[in-house]
Each structure stands twice: as structure tokens, then as C-alpha cells.
């Protein structure tokens, strides 16, 4: 007993002597102080799909850690592949920040830390193209909303080069061509179906499958010029009347031109990942008499998205879940909707 007491006393004394520096220590206890601890925490958060936490940890690791490399020493003789930019790209990709993701992936390529022989390569190659696709497609949607149908073609062309979802691009392209012709032709003219020959004939249609290991890292395709748009056989395309519903076929969710500006802009903001901006717009759209249930669905999704990206709290999440479930909004969700809304968001909304 004496020995135990003596040992305990010595340890206690030692701890007491260290107390002058404890306040500094305890203040930083919420986050790991070592870059490799932060990085490992980030990897764990990615596994749990906790994107907000992952982003925080990777940013810390990047700020305090060494240059990214395949072999970076942590402690002792241990080393890890240190790829914070790659994982930040993954985080951005999963939080609908395609432009940031694309930038991060470009940085990874510049660092040359993921090559064809590395285990991350297949996923990285796919994610890089996905980021470009999402960014280009979102850009196309924004341009559509702004009425810049010529610019849409270039964005869609770029999206098509990624070979991620050609059907979606083509569907959107048809819509774009239709709207372009509707803009150009007299209201009562009879027109043929929109031509998508320009896009379908694009050489990138025959691009290698996305998972091909030997495929070079995706590069942005040259932006189509205005002259290529002019070459489209506009005169032969019939101009359909604008639809009165949201176009869902092919999974493209674009509010009809007849829809309110609030809904259109809200949807675009939502799919651009700007959840904070989408919420007031969608709220306005959902409160209108005879509002489309999609407005309510996307409003709920935007609220959850905001929470997941660190902009909201658990109370908001619970409240949104309750509203979504009490109104049984899931009955309005189509398989096509599920393709474009983050599974993480839907999972949160449908969680009981």
C-alpha cells in the first residue's frame, strides 16, 4: 500500500508541476494538434460520410502538415500517403461544390501524387471527371436559367467529354435546343424535334469507359464556339411549346419556364450546392397557392444539405425530417429525383 501511495504521489506531483502549461493544452483539446492525427480523423469522417468534419480535418492537416506525397513520415518509422487535396476534392464533390472539387483534383494532378499504379487512381480518375461534369452541367443549368442558350452548348459539350452521364447531357441538350429554337422561331411555327447531332457526333462520345485504368486524367474539352452553334440546322427543328411541368424524364430536373422565378432560381441554387441561397427562394415557391410539391421536397433537401455542410444544427435537421415525413413528401419523389439529389440528404430525410 505504501508503495502504491508513493508511486501515486510522485505521479500526482509530476502532473502538478506541469500545470502551468495545462491551460494552453486544454484549450486545444477539441481538435488534434498533429497534422497526421487530423488527417486520420478526416479519413475516418470520410468513411462515415461526415463531410463537414472531414473538410475541417483535412484543411487543418493541409495547413499544418508537410507537402503531399505518397510517403510522408508521421511518427517513428511510420509513414502514410498524405493526399489532403484529393480528399478535400472528394468532400467538395459530395457536398455539391463541383468547382472546388475540380480545383482540388487539378491540384492533385499537378502534385503527381496519384498515378496509375496507386490504389486511389481508379476512383480519382472517375471523381475528377465527375467534378468536371457536375460543374459543367450546373453551369449549363445556370446559363439556361439566365437564358444564355448558346453558352449552354459549350458547357454541355464539356460535360459530355467526361463521359459520366451522357443521357442526362443529351436530354438537357434537347431541352436547351428546344428553348433556343423557341426563342429564335415565331410562336406558332411548326418545328421538327430538336437536333442533337452536334453533341451526338462529338468524338468524345466514343471515349473509353470511365473505369479504364489506362485512361489519361480527364481534361476539359475545348469550349464550343458560337460558330458551331450557328451551324446547327435550326430551320429544320420544330419548336415545341414550353412544357408546363418540371421535366423529369432522363432525370433532368429543370423547372418549366412557366414556373415562378423563385422556384427556378431556388432549384438552380440547390443544384449548385448553394443551400443557403436556395432555402428562401424555395420557401417562397412552396408558399405560393397550388405550389408544386417538388418545391417542398427541394426545400427540405436544401435545409438538410445546409445542416450536412455545417450550416445548420441538429434541431433544424429533426424539424425538417418531421415536416418531410408528416407531409409524406416522399411519395412525390421519383427514381429520377433520387439520381440527382444527394443520397446522404435523402437518407437523412427518410430516416425514422
Amino acid at each position: 500500500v505504501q508503495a502504491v501511495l508513493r508511486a501515486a504521489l510522485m505521479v500526482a506531483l509530476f502532473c502538478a508541476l506541469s500545470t502551468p502549461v495545462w491551460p494552453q493544452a486544454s484549450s486545444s483539446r477539441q481538435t488534434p494538434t498533429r497534422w497526421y492525427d487530423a488527417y486520420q480523423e478526416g479519413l475516418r469522417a470520410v468513411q462515415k460520410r461526415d463531410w463537414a468534419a472531414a473538410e475541417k480535418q483535412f484543411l487543418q492537416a493541409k495547413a499544418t502538415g508537410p507537402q503531399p506525397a505518397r510517403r510522408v513520415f508521421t511518427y517513428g518509422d511510420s509513414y502514410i500517403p498524405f493526399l489532403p487535396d484529393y480528399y478535400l476534392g472528394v468532400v467538395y464533390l459530395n457536398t455539391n461544390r463541383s468547382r472546388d472539387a475540380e480545383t482540388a483534383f487539378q491540384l492533385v494532378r499537378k502534385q503527381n501524387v496519384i498515378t496509375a499504379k496507386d490504389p486511389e487512381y481508379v476512383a480519382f480518375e472517375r471523381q475528377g471527371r465527375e467534378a468536371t461534369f457536375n460543374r459543367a452541367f450546373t453551369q449549363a443549368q445556370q446559363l439556361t436559367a439566365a437564358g444564355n442558350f448558346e453558352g449552354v452548348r459549350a458547357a454541355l459539350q464539356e460535360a459530355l467529354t467526361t463521359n459520366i452521364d451522357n443521357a442526362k447531357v443529351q436530354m438537357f441538350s434537347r431541352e436547351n435546343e428546344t428553348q433556343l429554337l423557341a426563342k429564335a422561331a415565331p410562336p406558332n411555327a411548326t418545328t421538327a424535334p430538336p437536333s442533337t447531332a452536334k453533341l451526338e457526333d462529338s468524338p468524345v462520345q466514343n471515349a473509353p469507359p470511365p473505369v479504364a485504368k489506362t485512361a489519361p486524367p480527364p481534361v476539359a474539352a475545348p469550349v464550343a464556339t458560337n460558330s458551331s452553334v450557328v451551324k446547327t440546322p435550326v430551320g429544320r427543328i420544330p419548336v415545341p411549346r414550353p412544357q408546363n411541368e418540371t421535366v423529369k424524364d432522363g432525370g433532368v430536373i429543370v423547372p418549366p419556364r412557366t414556373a415562378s422565378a423563385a422556384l427556378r432560381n431556388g432549384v438552380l441554387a440547390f443544384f449548385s450546392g448553394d443551400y443557403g441561397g436556395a432555402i428562401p427562394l424555395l420557401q417562397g415557391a412552396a408558399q405560393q397557392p397550388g405550389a408544386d410539391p417538388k418545391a417542398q421536397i427541394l426545400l427540405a433537401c436544401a435545409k438538410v444539405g445546409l445542416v450536412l455542410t455545417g450550416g445548420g444544427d441538429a434541431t433544424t435537421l429533426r424539424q425538417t425530417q418531421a415536416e418531410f415525413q408528416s407531409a409524406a413528401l416522399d411519395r412525390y419523389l421519383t427514381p429520377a429525383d433520387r439520381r440527382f439529389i444527394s443520397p446522404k440528404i435523402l437518407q437523412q430525410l427518410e430516416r425514422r
Partner: protein
Amino acid sequence: MQRIRLAACWVLAVVLSCADAAAQTSVQIPLQFDLINPGAKSLAMGGAFAGLADDATAGFANPAGLRELGRTEVSVETRGRWHSSPFLQRGRLSGRVQNEGTDTIAGPVFGESDDNSFRVPFVSVVVPQPQRGWALAGFRHELTRVNQFTFAEGVFFQDPREITSRREFPQEGIRKIALTSYGAAGAFELNPRIAVGATVSLHTFRLLSDFRRFDVVGFLGPPNRSVQLGRSTQDGKDTAVTPTLGIRACLKRCDDRQTASARFGFVYRQGATFTYDTQSGPAFRVSRFRVPNVFAGGVALEVPRPGRRLLITGEIKRTTYSRLKDDFIVDQAVDFQLENNVRLNDGTEVRAGVQYTIETAAWLPRFRAGIWSDPDHTVKYVPLSADHPELRLRDELLSIALSTGRRETHYSAGLGLTLSPTVEWNVGADFADSTTIVSASVILKLGR
């Protein structure tokens, strides 16, 4: 006439020695008590580990180093040890060789008591909690294992003033010491440059010594092991708890290893105290075995270069071997009233190690080498310088028997390989005149 003289010698020798035979001493059988860090990496780098302490052995070497670890680790070490201790076995220390029976060699002859073992002396688990800034470890460490067997035939000696020789009675000695530690260690980061750590160890102690004196056949003849003249035993089984305290500091952030860095470490390890029983002839007493305290300070300098990395470590370690004198050594000398004539000095070890890492090669090979100077920490005898022939001869006997200790230089080398992101393998060896140690350890890194 010669036969009569021999008979006279034998009678005189027996008469003069009989008192000694009843009161045994084992102090003349040297004991070397080594306190070597666990781990093949540490062994290969000359044990200069207080400043580095960056693996699962840190719980013992310097608990503050545990804070460095970023992943849960399980470490297992196997170690082979070949140690030989010299002891005075036969021969004539003084006087004229009779060239009869066993009295045929002029001068002392030392035998070697071999103590070889192959064991799993160290197992540990480290669980770091980076979010909270601390790490915990549990380990089992066999601090020391001694397994000695000696048999001395009995040396001859003669005082110039006496007409007859004397002979020491043959002695058989068995000495076993097992000291195992179960430690719980924790480290806490005060700031990115400084961490402190503490270990609380529960030690189990087992001592079993048995020294017997035997008669001889005639005066000059071989030992007669069927006639036992005296016996002394030491028997102990005890437990104790002691602390180890450590601190580690870095010149810049400890996790910044991209440029040259320096780390310092200091550790204090308190030795445990155990009780045991001594039975020497009719006398019985309770004594204490006090494990030396250790204070060590070390430095680790790391110099990274493109594709390779050089690590240099140094350590100075002070070990209070003198704690063994009271009561363990004294206990073996007290029956001869020699307790004031034995001494055991504290020792200062100087250690240095180097590691060269080839970062671009497969398995990340790490070549290690080390050197350290081990001070003489065997028991020494301070002669009485008495005028009495019997005491003078005792001086002669013990001075020679306890003269074998000396400072030794150890050379070490080893290799470390990272076989996969989760498995690390290290081998190391330490060579000195009296000891060879070979060690292999496997470290499993769990989780991310």
C-alpha cells in the same frame, strides 16, 4: 614423512575452515544485473532511446514518447540472450603448488557461468487518443532474468608466515532472479512541442538462491558432494509498485519532420523494493532486494534528405546500482562480517545510435547501429589489510574472486522493415565480451 605432513595440513585446514563452512557467503559469486530497454529497434541503436521513444516500447523507455503514436499498436518482442559470468573455480592463489590431487594449477582459474535464454520479454498495446491529446499503453516486460549455476572446486592459498596451505571448501551455487513488470502508461501533450508521460508499474519478484559447501576427499582431493558442510538460501516472492516519469520536448513542432529536427527526452524510473528471506545455517533474517533507480537524458537528431533520412541518438543514463548493496549484497557478506568491505558503485552509461532510412526503397529499410559503454557494476571487495593470516587470506580470496568486473563496450546493429502499412518488423543484436543479445520485434498497427 610427506604423508604425515599432508595429514597435518588437512587437519589444520579443516580446523581453520570449519567456522566458515557453517557461515556461508555467496558474495564471491558475482552478479551482474542489467537493465536493458525492450525492443529490437532500441537494442540496435545502442539503447539510446530516451530522446526518441517513438514506438510501443516508450511506455518503458520514456512514457512521454507515447504521445507521438498516432495509431493503435500491438508490439511483441522475442529476445535471445547469451551471458556468461566468470567465477573463481579452482587453482592456487598463493603458496607452492603441490602437484597432487586438485592442487596442480598455479594462479586462479575462472570458470564461466552461462546464463542463456530465449523468451518473449515484451508485449505492449498502445491506444492513442489524438482528439484528446493523450495516449495510453499497457505492457508486460521481463525486466531481468538471472539463472546462474556455479560450482567452485575450492582454491588453495597459503600465508607466507604459515607452514601449511589452506583450501576453500567447494561451493555449489544456484541463483535465480525473475523480475517482471506490468505497466500502465499514459502520455499527455502540453503543447505541440512538449509532452509528459508517466507509467505505473506493478512488479513481481522471485528470488531463489541456494549455495552449498561440500567436503573434500582428503585435503588435496576432489570435492565430496555427498558430505554437505553448510547451506545458505535466499527465497523471496514479492510485488511492488513504482512510477516512471518522462518528458519529451522538441525544438519545433514534434510532428514537423520535413526539415532537420531535434528532440530531447528525460526519464526517471524508480526501482522497486522487495523483501525476501535468508536462511544461512541456523540464522534466519528478512532482507530487501532493491532494484536500481534510473535517470536518463537523451537527444535525437533527425536529418531528412531527398529519398533518405538520418537519425542520430544519444543518451546518458545514470543507474544507482548501489541500491543492490543494501541489503542484497550485504546480506551475502554479513556472515563473514564483511558487510563494510563490499561495494557496488553507481554507473553512468553513455549510449549512441544511428539509423539510416532509404525512403524510396520497398519496405522502407532502416539500417541501425549503436555503441554504448557499460560501466563495471559487479560487486567489488575492499580488502581488510589485516595482519592476521586468516583475514589476509580471505582478503586474497575475495579480492581475486571479485576482480573480474570491468567496463565493457557494447556494439549493436539491426534492421527495420515496414512490410505493409500495418506490419513493421525489426531485428537487432548487441555484442559485448560477456553478453550477446539478439532481438526481433513485430509491431502491428491497427486502425487507420
